[in-house]
């Protein structure tokens, strides 16, 4: 039994390692560029998101919300979102509404509390899943092109894709700095309960301290990047209108986009129909 718990705790720790986090972030950003969702036009998807990210807030009709929820669940599945993101989503939804139900039951409430809580849960879940579909289903480049088409400044869209380009490197470096602490540091013994608490505090402290060398290393690196950006014409592109035109010329609405919108519309229409029939 003891062995089993040891093994279990080890595997959980393993799951939460930096390596795992890095892998999940990368998977989320780049691992699903061949899905149906990733193939859609970002402008269409952003417009779609405008509907599913806003409308549920203002409607409290259960069949309609349920219909929307099922739809965005389907799109999330189609986008093949990374496990960690889905886990965070579930945790988020529970922390928003699920615990309310538990508390209601504890204080003598009954099942009648389910209906109002369900509405809130559905709203939150629908909107979150719609966000997950758009922001993790699209690769950062497409997303930033879409935003640019809607008039967001070029600097914002460059920042998004540059951040994603740097992310893997930064995470690897962060991991190495953390490893430096692990190799040279002397963590408190963590056999007893008190020790475990101290160990946790120690680890949090190390993680925070690791940011300091990371920042300095990044600052050192950016000296070259700034010069290179100048040479590569970054500043010229920002003032040249034709560059934006060339960039956005690659965006194209296809048959799939039409189909995607049509199906979404159909699902919403059916949901509204059901709710009027009931």
């Amino acid at each position, binding site marked *: 039994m003891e062995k089993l718990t040891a093994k279990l705790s080890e595997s959980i720790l*393993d799951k939460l390692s930096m*390596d*795992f986090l890095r*892998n999940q972030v*990368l*998977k989320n950003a*780049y*691992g699903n560029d061949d899905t149906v969702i990733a193939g859609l036009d970002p402008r269409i998807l952003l417009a779609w998101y405008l509907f599913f990210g806003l409308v549920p807030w203002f409607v409290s009709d259960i069949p309609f919300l349920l219909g929307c929820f099922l739809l965005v669940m389907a799109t999330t599945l189609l986008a093949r979102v990374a496990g960690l993101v889905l886990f965070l989503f579930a945790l988020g939804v529970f922390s928003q509404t699920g615990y309310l139900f538990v508390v209601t039951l504890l204080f003598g409430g009954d099942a009648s509390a389910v209906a109002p809580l369900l509405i809130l849960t559905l709203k939150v879940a629908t909107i979150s899943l719609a966000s997950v579909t758009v922001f993790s289903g699209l690769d*950062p*480049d497409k997303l930033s092109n879409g935003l640019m088409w809607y008039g967001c400044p070029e600097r914002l869209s460059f920042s998004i*894709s*540059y951040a*994603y*380009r740097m992310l*893997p*490197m930064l995470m690897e*470096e962060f991991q*190495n*700095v953390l*490893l*430096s*602490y*692990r*190799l*040279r*540091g*002397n*963590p408190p013994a963590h056999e007893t309960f008190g020790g475990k608490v101290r160990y946790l505090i120690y680890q949090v402290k190390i993680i925070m*301290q*690791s940011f*300091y*060398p990371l920042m*300095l*290393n990044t600052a*050192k*690196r*950016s000296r*070259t*990047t700034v*010069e*290179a*950006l*100048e*040479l*590569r*014409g*970054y*500043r*010229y*592109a920002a003032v*040249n209108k*034709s*560059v934006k035109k*060339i*960039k956005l010329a690659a965006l194209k609405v296809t048959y799939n986009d039409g189909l995607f919108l049509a199906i979404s519309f159909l699902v919403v229409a059916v949901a509204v129909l059901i709710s009027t029939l009931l």
Partner: protein
Amino acid sequence: MNAVEIGGLTYTYPGVPQPTLRDISLQIPKGDFLAVVGNNGCGKSTLCKALNGLIPHFITGTMEGSVRVCGLNTLEYDVGVLAQKVGYVYQDFENQIVRPTVLDDASYSCLNYAFPDYLERGRAALKQCGLEGREEEYVWQLSGGQTHLLALAGAVSLRPDILILDEPIAQLDPMHADRIYAVLRDLNENHGKTILVIEHHTEYIADFCKHVMLMKDGQVRWILPTENALQRVEELEECNIFPPQVTQAAYGLRKGGILPANVPLPTTVADGEKAFAGLRYIPREKPAPAAPGGESAVSVQNVSLSYRSVKGEPHTVFDGLDLDIRKGEKVALIGSNGAGKSTLMKLMVGLLKPNAGTVSLFGEAIGDKKAEDLSRQISLVYQNPEEMFIKDSIRADIAYAMEVRKVPEWEKRTAELLERFRLTELADRDGRLMSGGQMRRASLAIGIALNPGILLLDEPTANLDIATRREIMAVLSDMKDIIQTAIIATHDMQLVCQWAERIIVLRGGRVVADGPRDEIFARADLVEQVGIRPPEIFTMGQALDRRALCYTIDEFLSSFQEA
């Protein structure tokens, strides 16, 4: 026509009292392949930045004189126009890559300068740089050599007439270094590009460059054809440039009166064969290698390890690896980029856990050890010293591990280590702000602070210029007596030959050869297969006599005499 014309150029960085470039006048003809050599801080990089307009448009300061590239006066045109004439690849090239995918990055400049055919230009540049077929890959999936080629493609895509590369092969294994230079030669000969390289590796200069320019104290000493330039052994050595080993050996023979003074010194192995034809090999008794014995220090048994990958199947690094390293051995771990050297080291210090099999230190499995004990037994010095600087001064960094373990007299030991590695004067500075050699020394001091029984060094001489490399090599041989067992992962074959007693060759996560240097370098199949390359002087000795196994110039000089 001249690609570059400089007249009376003097330049001073803002806030610096002395000018960095002093009264430079020169012409570089179109189609030249020029190597720029000189001491650290002699103004090589500054001169190159004056060619692409970064100086004076982006980096201000006071500039006198005129610089013309392809007929354009750099004062009259902005960086954007000049960047399309002069391509620049930095020494820390990975920082000039700003886009996530390969094709994106290669075509990025063209997009910014509003070329409608930017994708075609990017593709063409990738093809010229030998990265065809990798267009859709992500930049962080590329190896070091491929990343460098991508940085080059990004510069080539604008179709500049001049290409400048700052230390292109400092971080690469010999195979990748050859590829970079093959690409540069192709660009030079078949596409008419003028190429400037800042280069310390004189072997490559001898093989590829047409002219050499020597800079000293912000001035140009001379520009000469390569064969003549490399003859000037004393002048070059004075500036910490070391001519090819063949040339150095010939120079030694000339000084000893064995070669006539009026015959030019050879610069390549092929020239050397002719020049040294009159020499005879004198076989010498070699001391028999000490029989390996003693207890096991590191033992890797049947270890398998795979990484999660972003897509698809996990990537397998090791599958059933067995390895045994005994106490007191000095081991070099070699193999091309990505053969699993760094991963193996991380397994040994317990930073990675194998999926199967065990890693033991001194007969005890790592999993059973406390982290505390582990760090006293084994220590790892990273390839990138910056990642080891976790405190705000070198003194604090060296002291850290001892301080948190409450080692008695840790302050005294810190002072001793600072002294030993000649860092006392720099003790209060942040490690990141020091020079390459100083950073290396500091990282070594941090590595041995706890007096570990086993020391692991990941690429201790990568990214250093030749003079600093020599210095670090001296430090390493000096350390031999204070560390018992040491393992170095490296591409640097001179280091391997001079330092290691046992060489382990990794390829694709498997040990393909294991033995002393005579055994490893005598095997031609390994040289082919793994891309390892013995030092030039060894190849020279072999070309003259198959029995000759010389690893240093001194050994060569004592093994070959007048017939």
